[in-house]
């Protein structure tokens, strides 16, 4: 077990507790950056998909995991991001301008919704955001000149300083672009959590009344968090638009909202790592099931593709299993595993019992 001697307050302010942790993070980023040289076209595209889901998951995590605002409508912000990005690029703006703008538009949209919705919580807020989702879906169809209506919209290909980042023409470049966006967002998110703003988010989540007594403007803080959440999800939506290439309103269905909610709950509410682990699970498990099925067919001769809905069944079982047996999510499980390894052989089974208390988000107020 590692014992850390803290000799200055900066050790608590720094993002990483010790140099080894920083090195590990750099190593991870390095490995991620080298993936295009290792993976084939198909798996690299899947990796891009996972990155985009992780980005959207981080967006939702700000609202659900860190301020306790459940949202069933985040697919709407993905849509706003994607359509804003396509419209702005079609209007002739370069990607470096249109992309942040698309995030900003989604963020302001989310913030405006949150101002009246900030009084609601739990299941009521979830229903209100669901209503927002339905409205956005209708708006997309109605605003045909901008969105292409039912027919759909084409995401223009990206060029920065003459280098192509097209998803089909230059997938590796597009992957690096997504990786850079995800890495920067993660950094900003981690900064947020160690600063007064992030602490105010947690305060609002855990006890509104004492947050107020400490001087936190609860309504404004919740609106800010929801706006940031929508903004990051909007960025993910913009990238998703480029990734899919040609999309219409059906891409942003209610199932995307639900899947996003699964990403954050299964990944582990209240942790950035959770958004990544959740995204890997959500995008990875269907692939894994497909591979398994192919192997069964080729190796054992059992053809499961004839059984309809089997994929969905297995997928659902995994999710239900997680919710019942590991409410702290994948990240919570990993923390326990790590503590067990570090303390080996001194870990006791009841060590984590006292820590098992649900976040207020999880209790429906």
């Amino acid at each position, binding site marked *: 077990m590692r014992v850390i001697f803290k000799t200055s307050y900066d050790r608590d302010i720094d993002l990483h507790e010790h140099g080894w942790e920083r090195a590990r993070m750099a190593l991870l980023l390095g490995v991620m950056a080298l993936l295009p040289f290792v993976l084939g076209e198909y798996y690299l595209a899947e990796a891009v998909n996972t990155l985009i889901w992780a980005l959207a998951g981080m967006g939702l995590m700000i609202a659900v995991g860190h301020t306790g605002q459940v949202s069933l409508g985040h697919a709407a912000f993905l849509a706003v991001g994607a359509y804003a990005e396509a419209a702005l690029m079609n209007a002739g703006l370069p990607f470096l301008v249109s992309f942040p703008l698309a995030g900003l538009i989604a963020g302001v949209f989310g913030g405006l919704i949150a101002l009246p919705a900030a009084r609601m919580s739990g299941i009521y807020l979830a229903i209100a955001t669901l209503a927002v989702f339905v409205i956005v879906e209708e708006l997309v169809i109605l605003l045909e000149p901008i969105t292409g209506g039912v027919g759909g919209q084409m995401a223009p290909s990206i060029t920065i300083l003459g280098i192509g980042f097209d998803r089909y023409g230059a997938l590796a470049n597009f992957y690096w672009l997504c990786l850079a966006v995800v890495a920067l967002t993660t950094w900003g998110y981690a900064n947020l959590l160690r600063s007064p703003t992030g602490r105010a988010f*947690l305060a609002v989540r855990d006890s509104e009344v004492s947050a107020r007594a400490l001087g936190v403007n609860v309504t404004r803080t919740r609106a800010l968090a929801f706006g940031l959440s929508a903004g990051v999800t909007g960025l993910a939506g913009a990238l998703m638009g480029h990734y899919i290439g040609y999309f219409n309103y059906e891409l942003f269905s209610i199932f995307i909202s639900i899947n996003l909610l699964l990403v954050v709950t299964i990944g582990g509410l209240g942790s950035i790592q959770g958004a990544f682990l959740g995204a890997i699970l959500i995008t990875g498990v269907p692939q894994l099931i497909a591979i398994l099925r192919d192997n069964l067919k080729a190796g054992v001769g059992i053809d499961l593709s004839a059984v309809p809905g089997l994929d969905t069944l297995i997928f659902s079982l995994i999710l239900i299993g997680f919710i019942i047996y590991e409410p702290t999510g994948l990240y919570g499980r990993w923390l326990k595993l790590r503590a067990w390894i570090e303390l080996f052989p001194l870990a006791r089974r009841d060590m984590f019992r006292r820590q098992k208390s649900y976040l207020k988000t999880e209790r429906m107020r």
Partner: protein
Amino acid sequence: MSLLEVDDLAIHFGGVKAVDGISFAVEPGEVFAIIGPNGAGKSTIFNLISRIYEPTRGRIRFDGQDITRLRAHDIARLGIARTFQNIELFDHSTVLANLLMGRHSHRATNVVQDILFLPKVRREERAHRRKVEEVIEFLELEAYRGKMIAGLPYGVRKVVEIGRALAIGPRLILLDEPASGLSVEETQDMAFWIEDMRREMGLTVLMVEHDMSLVTQVCDRVLAVANGRPLALGTPAEVQGHPDVQAAYLGTERAS
């Protein structure tokens, strides 16, 4: 001039007059207690002062300024801190993070600076941390700095909540039943801390308390309330001996 002046304060929930015409003034450096039987409206008075409830009538003045119409989140900035009867800590954060939350009213950075974590944010964080460390030392919380609230025993949580209020750097601290649920030894510690808050930090203390031994030990003056109405105001001994107070606690003796 009095630090806190409460004048004819009242709040009615429908037909229930939870607080009805309470007036008192707390002098700077004083330890002032409000006592009364359950449901007397003690905590409601606290919630009115910290602006969680909207009074039906009456005035609250702090340091000469009328705070009756201020919003709840503006109170901390003026230098009024409070604790809650049923501890309201941020359960999924560490003790240190909870105490740092107490510094919120002193924040000098905005959200953009925070996300970029500019050097200014780090400077501010160090300054907040120094202030918080003073509180940690004062309340002897060194051993719990990095512990999650969810795993702490009740007595320690109680102290952490007081620490969070002190981190505001207040002039007036409202303690809602500081000794409830504490053991005899912990109550004794609490008495010393309240004494020290006044002596070392120059704080004014307003508290609601049931434990009369604590009240007589640390308080200068006591206000007894029952059914939202004032009964008696004076030194602990005077109030305890007051016939109306005894009647409110023990019931009236039937005339024989």
